[in-house]
């Protein structure tokens, strides 16, 4: 009884404190008042997690409060993102959103319990990871043109690996399938590692893989890199042309990573976070660390992020529909 009473007082006290802590402006001025939770909708150790942790450490130093990475993986990143969408919009919960969580999942899943545009206040992009089209060295094609010719000469015979149904690796290749009018068959694997292994072992002929996963094998000559999916060539592989310059202008596939806050987060807090995050991503040391992880630093504004999401939702939405991808 005694402890129960104490609990009640404690709860009442907390509620009172919360009420007294308003008005918003003072809250924003004192921000942050406690450690910040950064939700990463993917497991620890993955590429999104690594970038998130690199940035989290610096952000913590700048804000004078620890930024704790909270890995809430599962269901293609939709579980963690949903938690972030429902969190209190006070700047103490942020999430690292990506092309997967904020574009592809909403486009490909039959039901996602958040709206990437309406439920979030975008802050800024921090990084983007390029995609690289690689072939098993046994495939008789040295560049994209030859690969397309080969695929056309034997329709439905070649296979490509992906990191899973509805992954960027699948959508990238489906976009190429459509743009080039070829029919390379999708074989889904469980993640980038197994997809890479299948291509290395020649079980499948092609993979439009994430740069960090396939670059080491391309450099070692075990996979043949024939095109990058970015608008510009990659500094890591200056001799490999882009898909766009190989005859498909406008073709662009990359995975971006950026910071989001739940909708309704006070403006001053968003502005502060955008300034700090832009600083962090522009820092040469951070840029170098991103590059080591196969990503490049990118920053933009909330308005640009909204435009980016809307354009991509439309772009990938078409591919998803055309390829008949539906995750339930």
């Amino acid at each position, binding site marked *: 009884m005694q402890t129960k009473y104490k609990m009640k007082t404690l709860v009442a006290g907390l509620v009172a404190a919360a009420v007294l802590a308003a008005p918003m402006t003072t809250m924003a001025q004192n921000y942050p008042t406690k450690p910040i939770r950064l939700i990463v909708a993917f497991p620890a150790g*993955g590429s999104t997690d690594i970038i998130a942790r690199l940035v989290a450490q610096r952000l913590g130093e700048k804000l004078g409060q620890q930024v704790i990475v909270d890995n809430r993986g599962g269901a293609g990143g939709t579980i963690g993102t949903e938690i972030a969408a429902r969190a209190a919009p006070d700047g103490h919960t942020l999430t690292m959103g990506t092309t997967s969580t904020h574009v592809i999942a909403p486009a490909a899943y039959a039901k996602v319990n958040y709206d990437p545009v309406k439920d979030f206040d975008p802050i800024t992009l921090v990084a983007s990871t390029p995609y690289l089209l690689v072939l098993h060295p046994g495939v008789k094609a040295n560049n994209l043109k030859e690969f397309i010719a080969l695929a056309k000469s034997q329709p439905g015979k070649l*296979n490509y690996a992906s990191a899973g*149904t509805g992954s960027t690796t699948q959508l990238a290749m489906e976009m190429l399938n459509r743009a080039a009018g070829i029919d390379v068959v999708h074989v889904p694997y469980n993640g980038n*590692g197994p997809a890479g292994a*299948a291509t290395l072992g020649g079980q*499948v002929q092609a993979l439009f893989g994430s740069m*960090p996963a396939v670059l*080491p094998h391309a450099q070692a000559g075990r996979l043949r890199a024939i095109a990058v999916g970015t608008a510009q060539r990659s500094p890591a592989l200056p001799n490999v042309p882009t898909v766009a310059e190989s005859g498909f202008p406008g073709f662009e596939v990359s995975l971006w990573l950026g910071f989001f806050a739940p909708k309704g987060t006070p403006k001053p807090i968003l502005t502060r976070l955008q300034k700090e995050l832009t600083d962090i991503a522009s820092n040469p040391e951070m840029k170098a660390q991103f590059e080591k992880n196969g990503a490049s630093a990118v920053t933009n504004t909330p308005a640009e992020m909204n435009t980016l999401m809307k354009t991509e939702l439309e772009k990938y939405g078409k591919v998803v529909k055309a390829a008949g991808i539906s*995750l339930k």
Partner: protein
Amino acid sequence: MDADIISNLALGFSTAVSPINLFYCFIGVLVGTLIGVLPGIGPVAAVAMLLPLTFNLDAVGAIIMLSGIYYGTQYGGSTTAILVNLPGESASVVTCMDGYAMARQGRAGPALAIAAIGSFFAGTVGTILVALLGPPLAEIALKFGAPEYFSLMVMALIAAAVLAHGSMLKTICMIVLGLLVGIVGTDVNSGMSRFTFGASGLADGLSFVVVAMGLFGFAEILCNLQDKADTASRDILNQKITGLMPTAADMKAAFGAIVRGTAVGAFFGTLPGGGPTISAFSAYAVEKKLAKDPSRFGKGAIEGVAAPESANNAAVQCAFITTLTLGIPHGATMALLLGALTIQGIAPGPQVMTQRPDLFWGLIASMWIGNAMLVILNLPLVGLWIKLLKVPYRFLFPAIMVFMAIGVYSVNNLDLDIYMTILFGVLGYIFIKLKCEPAPLILAFVLGPLMEENLRRALLISRGDPTVFITRPISAAFLVATALLLAFMIVPSFRKKREEAVADSEAL
């Protein structure tokens, strides 16, 4: 070539035995063991939790410490499997069967010691294999495509029937049930949800920890609580504990099992996918097949602990082959280790060996050192662990339940997982009452999704042509072996033996 290996190993040892790296290795193994004995917290959770600790270390120190944590947890998981029937990760499910039986007979000490010794032997062989044959073995592993994996898993599943002690019909039912439980989640090919009942927490399927903690740990506690008679028998068990170390007879019996288990583990461990679990189950099946009196298995046969523990550790060691030489992770823990390397700015892949020989060979050397430390650390700890068994149930059970809940929750940070564990606990209790063994269910649960995935992938690549399974030589060999295994089981003399064994166990 040989001189190369020696100079490489010399480089490795000189890196690994630097006082600071030895310290990291020790800390890793110690922390790993301590976390591993907490029920429900397996290698994946432990490495994920401790990953941030290594961010500020240099690359060599970080990977050495994380590997230490990995071995430590793996071993810690076996400790709980033997003592309280709680498998820390999928591979120790097998250890539960005879290890826990030994503990109930007051022979927990020898069981723990033989697990440590077997693991050390296997670790040593594994280290040598990685050093000598790493790159060529990795090439062979790449030859394994979808058809090969599928046929291999069919074989493993059929072997699971050999594992069971009770009725064949019940075993088959448990396997089928395991396959069904494994289907829960999103289908890799179509993206359709199956048996998720709209819960997003089930979209990625049930986690192994949930199923194993429920069927083994939770069910065991329920069973022990049901009446006073069992508590009384436990008190007898406490007094009966004699001798912490295995006797000469134990060592003799276990030696062959350790060697065979190591061989089995090294083989399966090299293949990316399902390594330690398939190894442990297969090694156990091999021992049971070779035993003069297979009915001893499941009732405290020391070979039943030695073989799967050795196999499991050999597989863990060999898992580093594909991880390091190809940058292809072997499972969730290896993926985390690769993640740690990436954080250190090292792109895992074939070039690690040439660009960072100190890291590559240092890790190989520290594998062996880590295994040695595990034995040195754990043999004296055996006495301490045994004392844990003397803790009265009224303290031990609530503690186990709390740690189990924490462990289960820590995997995905989902409360749904805790409820599911309770559900599986109740199911496990019913199974115990019906004399249905959970081990075949667990194996089917682990293998089922992989098998389905590879079957469909193989048929997708062959454009629906099923002959791919018999025209590819490695796959065909596995299927022939499976057919032989089946023939053995159907042969009347064998069946008779089985029935005798069943009669034995029911008489007990």
